[in-house]
């Protein structure tokens, strides 16, 4: 599963940077979302359907956080929502494959 590796890499990057930001006194979102995305990647590599549920929860949390932080400023949502939603669609497209393997 290429997607699993991608999620793991992106998640690890976000988690590392997110930890740095937390240490600098900034937002906790990136660290948390990074860990969740990395875990999603691990679960995808293990071909477990739980990956979908975990990422769905992450994505839902992301939406809630984004609106809490910047309201309905659509340009401000570009970095917050576009890529996570793209990943969601990719993961959802993996459901048939995951089902075959579970």
């Amino acid at each position, binding site marked *: 599963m290429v997607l699993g590796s991608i999620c793991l890499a*992106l998640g690890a*990057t*976000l988690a590392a*940077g*997110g930890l*740095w*930001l937390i240490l*600098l*006194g*900034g*937002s906790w979102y*990136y660290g948390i*979302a990074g860990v969740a995305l990395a875990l999603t990647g691990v679960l995808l590599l293990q071909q477990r359907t739980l990956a979908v549920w975990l990422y769905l929860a992450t994505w839902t949390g992301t939406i809630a956080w984004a609106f809490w*932080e*910047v309201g309905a*400023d659509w*340009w*401000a949502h*570009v*970095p*917050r929502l*576009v*890529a*996570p939603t793209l990943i969601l669609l990719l993961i959802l497209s993996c459901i048939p494959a995951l089902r075959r393997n579970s």
Partner: protein
Amino acid sequence: MFRRNLIAVTILTTAAGPLAAQQDTQPPEPAGEETAAQATTSGPQPQMQVGADWPYYGGDANATRFSPLDKITPENVANLEPAFTYETGDMPEGQAEGMYSPETTPLKIGNDLLMCSAMNVLISIDATSGEENWRFDPGVPNEAIPYGATCRGVTYYIDPEAGEGDACATRVIQGTLDAKLVAVDAATGTPCEDFGENGTVDLWKDLGERVPGWYAVTAPPTLVRGILVTGAQVLDGQAEDAPSGVIRGYDAISGELAWAWDLAAPDQNRNGPPEGEVYTRGTPNMWTTGVADEELGYVYMPMGNSAVDYYGSNRTQAENEYATSLVALDATTGEEVWHFQTIRNDVWDYDLGSQSTLIEWQGTPAILLPTKQGDIYILDRATGEPLTPVDELTDLPKGEIEPDYIADSQPVSAWHTLRKDPLEEKDMWGFSPIDQLWCRIQYRRANYDGYLTPPSADRPWIQYPGYNGGSDWGSVAVDTERGIIVANYNDIPNYNQLIPREQADEMGLLPINEVDQRAGAPEGAGDPQLGSPYAINVNAGWRNDVTGMPCTRPPYGGIRAIDLETGETLWDRPLGTARRNGPFGIPSMLPLDIGTPNNGGAVVTASGLVFIAAATDNLFSAIDIETGETLWSVKLPAGGQANPITYEANGRQYVMVTAMGHHFMETPVGDEVMAWTLPED
């Protein structure tokens, strides 16, 4: 020449004390000697009217950029069609590649459009057909390009003594990149022999060592009482020992120096410095466009900062007094009448970039002053007293670099400011969570205490607004009939860091007089600031180093209508679409208003239209002044970073803008002068 030097020497020997004390000593006027100024200045001369013509850079003599024309209306503007395109043929070659930012605005007088190209080729074309009447190339070399190859405009002068058909009865005058005043006959393009040396005055005179590119004129000289007044761009950030920011007035007929205003030695150098000396080096310069009140005989010069922008402890008292001030000079004598300082002890490169506008405000002849900080002030034209409330910001952060130099308090306009609230971490941006996160980390790592955070070397600091404004050289337009100011503005931070000298030496940062090749890098991106303990690195617009995307959320620029009576915002909107922007420099083609950086101002017409290009989406648009709604727009073949004009010829109204691009704004370079008009009935 010799006679004037003799006078200056006399003054020097009679004035007491060392040069530094010149401030307080009033040298005696040389009795019985007529200075050049007295010999040449006359009473007020008739002013040309805006309407069919566009006779001044700012439209009318008051620089309102307001046209009484009304044939093009909100109802029919959508029918505009191309009238003609003229190509100047001036495109960058060799080392000029990546250094073009022409910013050109033509004048329209009679049947002619008069302009200069990026490299100062003077051109006259027919206002209805675009056919070339004449061109004159003064042969400016590429090495003269300072920060960019720029010629914002020319000045038109009617010789009141000349007869019809005399050579140079009407003349076109420009200041050039290689620091000359050039005057040619407006009818033929032939240099005016009586002006200086065969139509040329050398502005390098009395400035010290001639270093091409360090001292360059990019704005049209300001005409007042037959005197051409000019400052120059002194390339920022090179060294404290830089060419002087002296402002000089020259007789428009003879090119003779009428007076000089050297802010550090105004009396001593009034008629040029003494033999063997030069105008005071490193002083604040005036690179933008002045405006004049012909009746009063005053010329209003928006001053920039000293030669080294981001470190001030070595500046003189005179520099601190005048830097970043609007200065009113009496053009008949060259003496300062008043000055109004918009920022004290400027360490942010907050040069005054806009041309000021003369208005009547609640019955008082006034001058409207926009600033890069976004503050808009209205001052009494005769005295400089503010007519609108000015507040003081107190308890400002001092930083650790030069806490004794950083001012305790700073003026802000309580009447109107274009400045937005300070940045927060959540304002960081990108195209994905990862680059946004990187910007958030940068935000947290920087020193930032809001507006006017002082410079730092241990960590970067955030400067917001950045040096692009607020209001920059495009200035504002004022609809004097409706009482509306139209101000386009930038809304962009800079991410800066001082570099200790030792480190700067290791990096090999050298000033312009010690290097052969410069690459047209953004201003401040590794400037040596020689003479001070720090070089400076500016990340203009605070771009993400990997993606090139801005670190802060849009909009990056907007346009606003302000009630001239009350200072209240009537409408405010982003200016510029996202069609040319995207990550890694890939155009997104999104036709959505995002609000891009913009350079270049607006024109307002009596019919209620605002014409503006300026944004980095390369569109030229008409906006309804009542609602702020875009009614018409057209794609330009290159960046429209220039002030448009409107004029009438053969009974038809035209709108015009030059599409020539801008290296710093990263828009495509071109050489087009484009006009639109309504179809014939």
